[in-house]
């Protein structure tokens, strides 16, 4: 197991390097000029040129790359072009919000998606199956900003159960939890759809296997056969989809954070992009990349737990 973990971690290094380099290149390909966001549209060209120089935007690209890599190795994300604050401070301020939202969405996705998928498979072509299929189709087709607004209209504006602006006062635990419900539901719904589909098809396949027939022939109750025998075989694809989904969730958090007006990495990315704050954008993408790589490692490690064969191979 230890060797497996070490191998996985070592493999992450070239991946991260490739990601960092891509981030560096991508951010520099984005057209636009941060001086407009900083100085406004009334400043003269001379003032802009002076600022560009001060921000180090005039440096040769290779030097910028070396600086960037050096900084990352020191765990330093640099300073924001527009606010001049250390990026690490800004990122750490919003990171808990994104982690909390992503984890909550993961819970929503799994807790609703897995039973729904199993139920659908057990009642093939029955009501539960029909419901699960419609639901997952709707789930994958609704863009997060549309479902978000629908949720807000129904539960925040009409019923007033939850706030429209999903930020609670500091230290207000219940307020924070309350504010988390709608956004995590919104973000999680998309995942419910996928988890349901994967669970359903996996279960259908498993239920048609010989060993299930054997188990049934032994006289085991259907429920035991389903959960003890068939379900265990669906765990690997479920973990895969959940793990893959973590990446998608981080991406989708952007829309959810904007619609629900929650602070977070996604919202910060949009701000950084709008202001052409290259250094902040770069820092945020690095953090997201690390998060996704980490999620992938965790997924691989979970395989080992749910399927012992993975560990040995």
């Amino acid at each position, binding site marked *: 197991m230890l060797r497996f973990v070490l191998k996985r971690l070592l493999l992450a290094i070239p991946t991260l390097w490739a990601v960092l380099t891509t981030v560096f290149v991508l951010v520099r390909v984005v*057209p636009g000029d941060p001086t407009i966001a900083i100085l*406004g*549209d009334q400043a003269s060209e001379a003032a802009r*040129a002076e600022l560009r120089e001060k921000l180090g935007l005039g440096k040769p690209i290779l030097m910028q790359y070396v600086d960037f890599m050096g900084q990352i190795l020191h765990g330093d994300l640099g300073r924001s072009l527009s606010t001049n604050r250390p990026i690490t401070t800004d990122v750490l301020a*919003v990171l808990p919000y994104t982690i909390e939202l992503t984890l909550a969405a993961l819970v929503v996705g799994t807790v609703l998606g897995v039973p729904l998928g199993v139920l659908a498979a057990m009642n093939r072509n029955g009501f539960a199956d029909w419901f699960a299929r419609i639901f997952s189709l709707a789930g994958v087709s609704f863009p997060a900003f549309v479902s978000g607004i629908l949720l807000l*209209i129904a539960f925040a504006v009409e019923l007033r159960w939850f706030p429209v602006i999903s930020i609670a006062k500091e230290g207000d635990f219940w307020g924070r939890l309350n504010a988390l419900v709608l956004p995590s539901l919104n973000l999680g719904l998309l995942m419910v759809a996928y988890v349901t589909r994967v669970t359903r098809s996996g279960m259908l396949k498993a239920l048609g296997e010989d060993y299930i027939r054997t188990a049934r022939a032994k006289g085991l109750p259907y429920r035991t056969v389903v959960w003890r025998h068939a379900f265990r075989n669906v765990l690997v694809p479920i973990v895969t989809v959940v793990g893959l989904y973590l990446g998608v969730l981080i991406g989708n958090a952007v829309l959810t954070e904007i619609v629900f*007006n929650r*602070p977070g990495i996604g*919202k910060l990315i949009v701000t950084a992009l709008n202001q052409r704050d290259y250094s902040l954008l770069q820092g945020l993408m690095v953090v997201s990349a690390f998060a996704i790589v980490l999620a992938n490692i965790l997924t691989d490690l979970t395989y080992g737990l749910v399927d012992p064969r993975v560990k040995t191979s």
Partner: protein
Amino acid sequence: MKRHILAATTALALLAAGFGPAAAETVLTVGMAAADVGQLDPHRATTTQDKPVVSWMFNGLVRFKPGSASLEELEPDLAESWDKSADGLTWTFHLRKGVKFHGDWGEMTSEDVVYSLKRAADSKTSSFASDYAPVASIDAVDPYTVKIVLKQPIPALLGIVANYHGGNIVSKKAAEALGADFKIKPVGTGPFAIADYKSNESLTLVANKAYFRGAPKIDKILYRFIPADAARDLAFTSGELDVVYGRQDQRWVERFQKEKGIAVEVVQPSELALLFVNQSKKPFDDIRVRKAIAMAIDSKQIVGFKGAATAIPPVSVVPVGYLGTYNAKLYPHDVAKAKALLAEAGYPNGLELKVIQTSLPTMLNSMQIVQAQLKQAGIDMKMEVVDHQSWHAQIRKDLSEANYYSAARFPVADVYLKQFFHSRAIVGTPTAVTNFSHCSVADKEIDDAAISTDAAKQKELWATAQQKIVDDVCAVPLFEQLQVWARHDNVDYGYTFKAAIHLGPVITEATTKK
């Protein structure tokens, strides 16, 4: 028994008075269409989301009357009075005594005023340095007197010492001590002081109890950044926001005007939308082609589309209500004449016009109307649509044959004329600002007006400049867009909100929330 009830009720009433409403603080929540604050340093703040906040925290020597954007209605602020020498070159300001800066930054004196204005005049610390170019010296005569000497008269000198842009007075000690942090921890003398800033989330301001006009009635302002239009509207509808930045959209205004308990205010200053025609590119160097473009465009139709509630017809190449705006003689809408002009210029079958356009929906849809109108005269306008920031960067590289730009500026004709139509401001040069059309036809009038001491003569020069620019089709005026704000009617600004030089309501010591 009755007595007991009476006693109990009295006790309850006392309790309620003691712990109920008196303990609760009045928080005014304002929702802004932005993802974050940009710059709260008043000498740098130019964006729509930053300017209102600056107006809550700072004072100038004089101020725009709350609810007004007119230079003719300026009133004393940090200066109680002022004298002007006969030649108009020396101005002496007598400061109010005992004005305190926020926090422990002490009393405001002439030293702070001198520091602030010099800071505003320096391009390293200010985005408005060019406004102060004619200033020769700024000196403290004594702790409560400041003397400003000019090299040449400035149109509306009071304008550059008003509580707007460079005229805002900052604490010298604080600005020096905080350095780069000053832009998120600004220190002024205004009715509200910054208390907290949460990146991408909100700003909290608290009442400055020592404010020289009296302690504000609102205890706290929570200024929230809500970039998504729908989320902002929903938060306003649900009552989570007291005041909201409205959409510059006829349907939005009509919808909220119908809602009970909500007041929608459509205010000046407007942003004038102009189509700049780039004379440096062929065939737009030909006046006949430019005239054809001007005549093909029907501004009435654009105003009709934008909606009469938020848009007004343009009168000139300078927005209405500015000091010096002239009701220019604009080219009439005449498609037949436009076609004839094109034929005369050698384009009987029409021509192509390539523009770079922002994807910002409100600006894009205006341009789509222009596109359709030009098409009728045989001008095929090809739009390369890019995102807003790229557009800003690209149009400054002189890449577009025509350019749609919409802006509000300091309400003097001088500023608009200098930034958009003077040859010094031509894009692609080191002194460039926003002269996208390479216009130079009125340089002399603009320069002469700037140093004219005779107000009537000055207005005449500005008028001539505007007519020349219109005649030469440096830009085609399209429409003027007003600002839209809405509030729940339990909020009373304390004045009639008709205009906002700071692009948002000024929250003063008199503002209340019931």
